């Protein structure tokens, strides 16, 4: 009898606990998803090499320019350009990258900071930046130091196909790898919300496999369609920009840091009549309604401004002259510069004593073989001569 009573009591307690925990969990989750972000990051990648892929670099630089203009500082932008177009010897206007053949807007600008360039733009480095698993000696400017309240904008452009994106004409990243990387980021709480934009052929295939929450994705073309480039410039000799990013840049040029434009306007950028391909988007993994998400949530930056009406006095930092310790007491000999080419010294230089390293590899194996053969033929009892 007491057993049954005890069991019933236990069951009641357990069910209460379960209900209590469930309530706590939902309120916490609800709180988590409706809270805003506190900082913004951007990862902008151009994956193509060679001069005829000038337009991909121009694409990335125009998004970089917009993102900087709307407030994200260089320290929060990871810019990866697989090749150098601005100072390329084929560029008739060095240190410039143009988006339109009227050559009005130099998207390269005067204060650009490229974090990964040339051969450093590889699939491995891109995934390492996203997941944060970088070697310890990586400098700060090459890291994505986001936390769980960061909104991240990721922009990829290059040549792609159904389910993959080509890096530097030698390797690919598949849509599954990308989805797994985002899942890793979610599990390590490296983002609050993430906006993924891709401008390649068959770009919609890259976001098909996403399964982590809080992801919104945009692509320039559907599966089976090609993204087309905008217009060539006869002076430079190549196509300057892709259609989707060109109209995206046009749209973003009208956005200012206090703008109230939302994601629905972004989805309308470059309809099929302008782009020839059909841009696509994916919002099912996103918690909030796209109509309530501002463009500046991803392209701009949150700034905390404190206004004060008090005056602050700045003290002038005049330090007393540093007294050279014991300059009068001890006789310090004057220091000299080194002779740049001491011929006599060099000729009579003794060879350096190299540090002794224990033998490794081939030599060690050879000696082991010799010893083994020796002891095989003459027996174990000779070992006592050594030990």
């Amino acid at each position, binding site marked *: 009898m007491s057993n049954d009573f005890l069991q019933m009591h236990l069951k009641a307690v357990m069910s209460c606990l379960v209900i209590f925990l469930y309530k706590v969990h939902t309120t916490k989750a609800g709180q988590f998803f409706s809270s805003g972000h506190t900082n913004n990051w951007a990862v902008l990648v151009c994956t193509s090499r060679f001069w005829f892929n000038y337009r991909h670099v121009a694409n990335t630089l125009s998004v970089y320019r917009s993102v900087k203009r709307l407030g994200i500082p260089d320290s929060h932008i990871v810019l990866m350009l697989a090749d150098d177009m601005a100072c390329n010897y084929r560029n008739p206007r060095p240190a410039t990258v143009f988006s339109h053949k009227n050559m009005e807007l130099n998207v390269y600008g005067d204060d650009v900071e490229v974090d990964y*360039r040339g051969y450093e733009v590889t699939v491995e480095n891109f995934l390492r930046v996203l997941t944060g698993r970088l070697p310890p*000696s990586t400098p700060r400017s090459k890291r994505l130091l986001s936390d769980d309240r960061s909104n991240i904008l990721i922009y990829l452009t290059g040549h792609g196909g159904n389910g993959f994106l080509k890096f530097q004409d030698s390797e690919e990243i598949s849509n599954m790898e990308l989805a797994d990387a985002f899942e890793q980021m979610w599990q390590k709480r490296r983002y609050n919300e993430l906006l993924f934009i891709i401008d390649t052929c068959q770009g919609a295939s890259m976001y098909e496999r996403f399964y982590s929450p809080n992801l919104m994705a945009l692509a320039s073309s559907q599966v089976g369609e090609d993204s087309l480039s905008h217009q060539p410039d006869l002076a430079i000799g190549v196509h300057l920009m892709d259609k989707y990013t060109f109209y995206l840049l046009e749209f973003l040029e009208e956005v200012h840091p206090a703008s109230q434009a939302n994601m629905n306007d972004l989805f309308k950028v470059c309809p099929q009549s302008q782009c020839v391909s059909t841009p696509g988007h994916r919002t099912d993994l996103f918690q909030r309604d796209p109509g309530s998400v501002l463009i500046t949530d991803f392209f701009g930056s949150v700034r905390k401004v404190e206004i004060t009406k008090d005056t602050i006095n700045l003290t002038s930092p005049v330090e007393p002259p540093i007294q050279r310790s014991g300059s009068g007491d001890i006789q310090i000999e004057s220091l*000299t*510069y080194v002779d740049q080419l001491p011929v006599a010294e060099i*000729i009579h230089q003794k060879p350096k004593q190299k540090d002794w390293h224990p033998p490794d590899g081939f030599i060690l194996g050879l000696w082991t073989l010799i010893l083994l053969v020796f002891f095989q033929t003459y027996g174990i009892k000779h070992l006592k001569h050594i030990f």
Partner: protein
Amino acid sequence: PHPGTRDQFQEELVIRPLHSGDIYASFQFRTLWDTDFLQERQKKVSHYRLFPKSLGQVLSKFSVRELHISFTQGFWRTMQWGQPFIPSPPGAELWVWFHHTVSDVDGNWKELTNVLSGIFCASLNFIDMTNTVQPSASFKPLGLGNATDHRFLRYATLPREIVCTENLTPWKKLLPCGSKAGLAVLMKSEKLFHSSFHSQAVHIRPICQDEQCTSKAWELRQTLNVVFDHYTSGQGKKEWSLFKMFSRTLTEACPLASSSKVYVDITDNPELFELSPATHLLSRAVVLGDRRTYSVYDLTRAETFGQLRSFNLLLRWKGDNMLRPLLHAERYVAGFGLQTGEIHTVIYNNHPYRAFPVLLMDSVPWYLQLYVHTLTVTSKSRDNKPSYIHYQPAKDRHRPHLLEMLIQLPPHSMTEVTVQFERALLKWTEYTPDPNHGFYVGSSVVSALVPSMVAMSTNFTQDQPLFSSFVPVKEESSYFVRVYTEPLLVNLPTPDFSMPYNVICLTCTVVAVGYGSFYNLLTRTFQVDEPSPPLAKRLANFIRRIRGVPLLA
């Protein structure tokens, strides 16, 4: 500037018209930092005034004694342009002397290259053991000190590295005034990179703090050398002005600078060119073994800017003249095919009667396997035996070749150094994404003490112009110069990267068609199968089965 602190900042621009109609502009910004944290008491520094904090932290964390890094686009043409004030090879070059208290030099070197790649936005993290060398006699420290144990020196060069605005931006941020005031306003990337030669460098070293030289101070020199070509700038006549070169004029000196001057080399005036506005301030300096006269424009004085409050120089060429530098080197690859080749380094001594020694340093990557028994040094078609040779052979995928030789160059001669090599086959993952471009071999470095026509001054004074006080002068009769040769571009045998795919397709086809049909042939059994009878017969058989009567055939 406060009288209490002894930090100092000086900026200077030297304009040297060249004989070919081009113009050479050299900016030097020097920041003196009066602190010595490498002493034993290890006082932590937390207040940075003029010296940039990012570099100060690098120096203290890695116990760096000297740091020299340069980024160059283009090649310095010694025969047409003479000797530069600060030489640099194409690409990126980094050499560092570490303090003798460092126990793990290689570890510090690796971390230092990573940190610098973040500071300068360059791919310096590609510097590793396969392209770092430890010269045994070249690259002695340019700063104070007496211990020169070459175990603490590391040298690496990346000839493939490009320079663009993304490297200029962080370089400009290191200046106390940034690019907002002083001479740095002239640095607009659209003009600077539209030139024949562009080189920006950072040199950090300890120097004498005062005349008695009893204590050290850190010196940070940021130099930018650029040569504007009148052909590429698209102008027919040889006429230059500050506005044409930089698309800006000067309006003020940097307020934090104790001296801000513009020097124009007028030694060849008035035969070669004409300068306006003229000035009475002249300065004579002995630089690179030659006594040159310079017009000085002091930007800290308001009258330099005139009534328009802007300062613009104008130079107009009149005639042509030829130049004959005393020391000159070039390098090329000879041979044909993708298996063997020969590296030729040619050094010219154009002095009519004096011979002098040069130290040649060659660093060749491991995939060009040098045959040192084929090394020959000939001068005037006779064998010239070097008085010092240091050769460190390469270890595959671990270490490059290092060859250092001290050669005595006879007067008025051409010395040729040849060595044969064989190209190695790399593993397929070691090829770059564009392997058909070729692989670069870094420039050779020729260090020499060239006899000077004019006596050089060995006194160290604070008032010397910056361009003549970079290399410390030990004796009066010769000056130290470093000449870099061209980098080499060598094609390695490149495989066809689509072969793995081709092999998989072919193998699968062969297996499927060949083996598959063979397997079927061996294991398939045959059964005799009667064709199904027509409908009438089937019906008849069905009725017969019900009746129990034997079936039809």
